[in-house]
Structure formats: C-alpha cells, structure tokens
C-alpha cells in the first residue's frame, strides 16, 4: 500500500533538492530526515512522481561527506531522467572538447578499475586537447566533482560521476564506437571539432 504523503512535504523536498544551498547540489540523508521526518524515502517517492513528467528523477548516491558515523551516508539529487542532445549540452555551456575530455577521463579511470594515475589520464587527454588545456580540464573535473585525486596522485571517480553517469551505457557506447581510422568521412555532426 502506498503511503500518503502531504503535498507540503513534497514541496519542501523539491526546494531542498532543486535549490542549491551549499557547495554541492542536493541534500544529505540526515538533512532530509530532519526536515521531512523519518518517512523521507516516501516523500522522495512522491516527489519522483511529480518530477517524472518533467523528465527528472531523484537519485541517491553514496557520499563520504554525508556519512554521519553510523554508516555510509547518501546524498540525494534531482537528475535528468533522459539524456541531453548535443545542442542542449552546448546551450548549457558545455563545449564539445570538454565533453570528450570528460568521457575519456571517466572511461580510462573505469578501465583501470576506478583508479588511474593522473599522468596517464593527462597523457591520454593531452594527445587530443593539448597539454595546457588538459591540465586545466582535469582540474575543472576535480573541482566539479567528476573526479577526485588522492594523496598518491591517483584519480578516482567523484561523487558527481556516480550521480550523473551511467557507466555501463558509457562503456557500451565507447566499445561500440568506431576508431577514427575506421570511421567514415565526417559530414560534420554539428558537434564541432576537438582542437
């Protein structure tokens, strides 16, 4: 039987998840528990129903910063349920070379079992994007939470990569993609080119 949730709580949950209040978007589990009550998972379900027609959904991701000592904490965020078109991505301020750099960096870290030396990631990206831009991009990916670097100089997937990227889909697409030498002559996909 579905639990009935007060609309007021759904509204409050939407505000907590959609309006950015701190460095990271979304809300932590303990925060939701405090503001929405112990039945906050049911409230999030109700919010999901409201967001579904907008192509959005609530997703919980493991968040080391959200751990309260009693176990692994979670951060809940609202994400796009479907995917973005290249034109939408460009409209949102994403450059095509930034997207390709992010894809390559995430895929290499995934291929290395979630941990890859920073130099190796930079070497891969620098080949396509240039050394100077690569260093700036990797720093940007770190700052925005897609990657995180440990004290030994290894890059791992960040909280945002777990929240936003469907790794299985990414790897499947990359494995299915044709390398440049085999690809047919480009007709101009409208995505621009990587300098």
């Amino acid at each position, binding site marked *: 039987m579905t639990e009935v949730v007060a609309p007021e709580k759904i509204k409050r949950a939407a505000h907590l998840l959609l309006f950015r209040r701190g460095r990271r978007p979304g809300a932590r589990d303990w925060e939701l528990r405090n503001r929405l009550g112990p039945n906050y998972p049911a409230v999030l379900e109700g919010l999901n129903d409201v967001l579904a027609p907008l192509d959005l959904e609530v997703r919980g991701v493991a968040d080391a910063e959200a751990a309260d000592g009693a176990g692994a904490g979670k951060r809940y965020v*609202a994400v796009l349920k479907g*995917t973005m078109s290249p034109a939408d991505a460009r409209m949102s301020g994403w450059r095509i070379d930034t997207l390709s750099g992010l894809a390559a960096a995430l895929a290499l870290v995934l291929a290395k079992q979630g941990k890859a030396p920073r130099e190796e990631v930079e070497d891969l990206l620098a080949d396509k994007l240039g050394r100077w831009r690569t260093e700036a991009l990797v720093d940007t990916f770190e700052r925005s939470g897609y990657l995180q670097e440990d004290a030994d100089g290894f890059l791992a997937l960040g909280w945002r990569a777990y929240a*936003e990227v*469907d790794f299985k889909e990414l790897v499947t697409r990359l494995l299915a*993609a044709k390398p440049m030498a085999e690809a047919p002559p480009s007709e101009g996909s409208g*995505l621009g080119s990587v300098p």
Partner: protein
Amino acid sequence: MAMSLPKAREEMRELLAMCRAVEGRRRAPFEVDVGEAAAKAAIYFPSWQDLADLRLDAAVLNGLSRVVQIQESRLRYEAGLFLADPQYLAGKLAGLSGDALADALLASWHPVAQLEQVTERGLEAAKRYFDALLPWSERRVKPPSGRPPEAKRMDEEDLASLGILRREGFLGYLGDLWEELKASGPVAHEDFVGRGDAVRRAYGAAFLVSYGYAELVPEDGRMVLHANPERIERRGCRSTVIVLGGET
C-alpha cells in the same frame, strides 16, 4: 637444486617490480602469474642466508598477495559491471575521435538539475564588488598602451603653458620693452636705456636686437633703435659694443 644466488635475487627483484607496477596500475594484474611466482619464491627460500634476502622474500610475498587482491577485484569488476575487457577499452580510447567520445558521454549522462538562487552570502559578495567597482566613465577610458608618447620639440610658449616657464618673467619684460620701442618709434640707444634701470634695459635691448625684434642702426654717429613690427630671422649677425654710462 643448483641455483646461483645473484640470479635468484635478480629474479625476485624483477617479481617485486612487477607487483609494484600492477599496484600502480601500470601493468595489467593478470600479467603476473601468481602461482608460478609463489612456487619460485618457495624454491629460493632455503637458499636465503642474509637478512636482506629474507626481507626481499617477504616483500615479494606481500606484493603477490596484493596482486591477488587486485586480480580478485578485477574479476568482480568485469563480471559485475561491464562484461568487457577493461584493457581493451583503455587501449581503444586513444583511437576514438572527440565527437565519438562526446556522443558516448551524452548518451549516458544524466546531469544534476539545480537552480541557482540569491543567498545572503552571495548578496554580501555582490555588494562588496559593487562598492569597489569604478564608475563606467572611468572604466571605459582606453587603458594606457604602456608606450611613452612620441618625443617632440617644445618652445617657450609650450613651456609657459605647462607652467614650467613663467610668462611674466624675463620674456614678459622683453615683450614690454618691445611694445615700448614700437610705441616710441626710432630712438637713440642711450636715450632708450636711460629711461630706467640702464643696465637691465640695455640687457633687454641687446636681446631684442639679437633675436630680431629690433634693429640697431648707426645714424649721425649715434646708435638708433628701430622696432621691427614682426620678429625677423637673423643670419650672419655680428657683435657691437656699446659703452653705457656717458662721459667718463
């Protein structure tokens, strides 16, 4: 089994280096045959006599145990997520075009939806910025190019306009003297300088003649000053000595 110790040490060092490379993600974990390496270590073990050899043996065993850990997690990883060979994926990335990489990400990317909002802290930062902001009239002025202006010759008028030279100084005095001479018409030099401070007026009259504001013409044994209406260029001047002070 007969085995030279240096060769055994060398093999153990190579094994250790291989284990470290796997830990550092520079080599694939299954490049190390753990069973074979452990058997080799077991064969060499009775030959070790030095403490350093025993430490090397322990380090190799520790490294092999880590390799086993990594191999186990690799198997779980491959079985649980991809059903694909990660090494193949890593090797393929370099050959993919930027468009292909971006397309793959876009097909698997579900970005976080968030709305920016005005916060108290943001407002404080904005106010600090606004207070420190220069007026538009000052900001739009073309910034200096960093190059000094072109050098040019300056005359007395320019110096006077810059306040470096005062008009009412000696030049002003000469101007007054010239005006007086023009007003009075031709006049004997001694009469002209005798109208006031003779030395100062004679000094000024000498300047007027030297710079072309007046002419000194000998007439009937006397030197007569004629004012020029405009300054004339002097060429081929010569000096003239005029004794002041009357009869001695």
